[in-house]
């Protein structure tokens, strides 16, 4: 194959691979953002539920507790409410941890891909340089 063609091909290959990598990279960039926003939401819910729990503790049994489900205020038992809130709290904590691990993984993967991308870019540039030089 003539030199030019070979060079061109070589150039193309890295670039195509690069594109693929870049696509992945964008994926790796977006996912962490999503995870981050979700995690922040969870954080707010966590604080809120903590307050609810504390306030429920402040209440006495005489107080009637309602839960808003859609447009309806449903009567709840104080103890039940407390239990529900506690469970919700645990659930939220678990979700947060899950998102944390997910974020870390995403970060690692993105780093790896970044390295691959950079190496590909280098090859690409080299190929370009060679082509230029040879030409």
């Amino acid at each position, binding site marked *: 194959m003539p030199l030019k063609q070979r060079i061109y091909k070589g150039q193309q290959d890295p670039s195509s691979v690069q594109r693929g990598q870049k696509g992945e990279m964008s994926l790796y960039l977006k996912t962490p953002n999503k995870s981050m926003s979700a995690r922040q939401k969870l954080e707010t819910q966590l604080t809120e539920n903590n307050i609810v729990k504390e306030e429920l503790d402040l209440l006495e049994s005489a107080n*009637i507790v309602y839960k808003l489900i859609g447009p309806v205020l449903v009567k709840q038992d104080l103890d039940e409410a407390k239990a529900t809130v506690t469970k919700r709290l645990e659930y939220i904590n678990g979700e947060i941890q899950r998102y944390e691990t997910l974020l870390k993984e995403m970060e690692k993967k993105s780093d790896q891909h970044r390295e691959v991308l950079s190496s590909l870019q280098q090859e690409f540039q080299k190929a370009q340089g060679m082509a230029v030089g040879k030409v």
Partner: protein
Amino acid sequence: MAEKGNMNVEHVDGVARLREEHEKVVKDCESRIQHWKKVSGDYEALNDRLETLPEQLSYDIMVPFGPLAFMPGKLVHTNEVTALLGDNWFAKCSAKQAQKLVSHRMKYVKKELDDLSKTMKNFEARVSLAKNLESMSASKGDYVDIREDAGNNEAALTKGKQRIAHKPNSKPKLDAVLDLKEEEEEENDEGSRKSVLTEEELWARLDELEKLEELQDEQDRLSDNAEMNGEDTSSSSSEEEEKEKDGQAETRVNGLSLKPSWSSAPHSKVPPSVDGKEDEDDDDEDEGDCLPTIFFSHTVEPKKVRINTGKNTMLKFSERKEQKEHSKRKKKNGHSHHELHKITTPADIYRLFVDVKNGEPIPRKSILKSRSRENSVCSDTSESSAADFDERRMIGRSFSHDEATHSDTSDGITEEDSPTAVPLHPSSKFEAFSGTVVEKDPMPLAVPHLTIAPPALPTILERKQEEVAPDPPPPQEPPKRVSKFKAARLQQK
């Protein structure tokens, strides 16, 4: 310097950005604090309402009917409050209980407020720090001349080791003192204007120093012989230091790049010791020049001949050039390079122009040293046997001729060189001193370091052949050099 400058520039940018980021955080904190303050106000109002609500069983109020109408109505069950606990949880409670809830929430809000205010204070402090840093880095724009930042520290350091003109004939210490003071002042001031001043001062100083050097050279020459004899080469290093100090104070201009040397001078004081060394080296060169004996400023003279014509042997040549180059490079390259070919102190001469080395790296000794005297062709060192002396004289004369052709500077250098060359050949009088060794000796040794050396070699070789050849003993020396002298020696032998 350039590196440092670059670093400074980067620092300035980085610091500016850092400051901006800090300020952003501070603003964010402020907004949040505002929000929480509002919430706190609301809760307080709520608290008051809950306080007063149960006072009456019912209240007559105007009830809002839609967005535009009101209806008279009554507010009943004033003690029953359905409170939102958060996360779609409601609780029916009395007003008092509601108050408890409210106070509980208030606690939380207060906590948040406190945290935010702490953070804000923290970042405000950082912002101020960044601002200061920025101003500092901006001020030291041209740290090339004088590093004000470093200067302060260095000033402290240099103060301790401020060099004093130790050389007997060294330039008046006033210069050094003045320079030091100036430098200190410069260092102390961190204004950008300082750099400007320093440059001007530098130029003025250079001029002054040049004049001083000329005067001193004359004086030194006269007294050099006496001094050289008296001084010990062993203390050359100390002398060098002194010289360096002097040199720093003085303009080192002997043909050496004024600017670089000058700039180095202030730097020497200001910059870290490493730089100081470089400066010192520069100074040494200059000082060497200052010293009556060595003028490193001479143009590339084909050979460095030690001429003993009543003066110390001369080291001609391109040493000066080399030195100049070195001094210039020194600024860039740093100390090591400098050391190699730079003759900042008399000791350097010995080191560099080891033409006298006889196969061994025998450091030259100044002619002042007894050994050198024997070997040196200097009239001062006429301790050597008469024969040797005559021989040397012969050699010296030939060199002197060359010297005469050269400027004074060369004489100065040669003078020093001769002493250095002489010491190399301590024991064997004749051979040790065939000493004109100086000529090329430095070249071979200097070759690796000095770029000039190679070119000089050929010329020097030529000259050497004309003049007395250097001692054969030093195998390192190019054989050509010793042609004449060798012949003479052989004859004598």
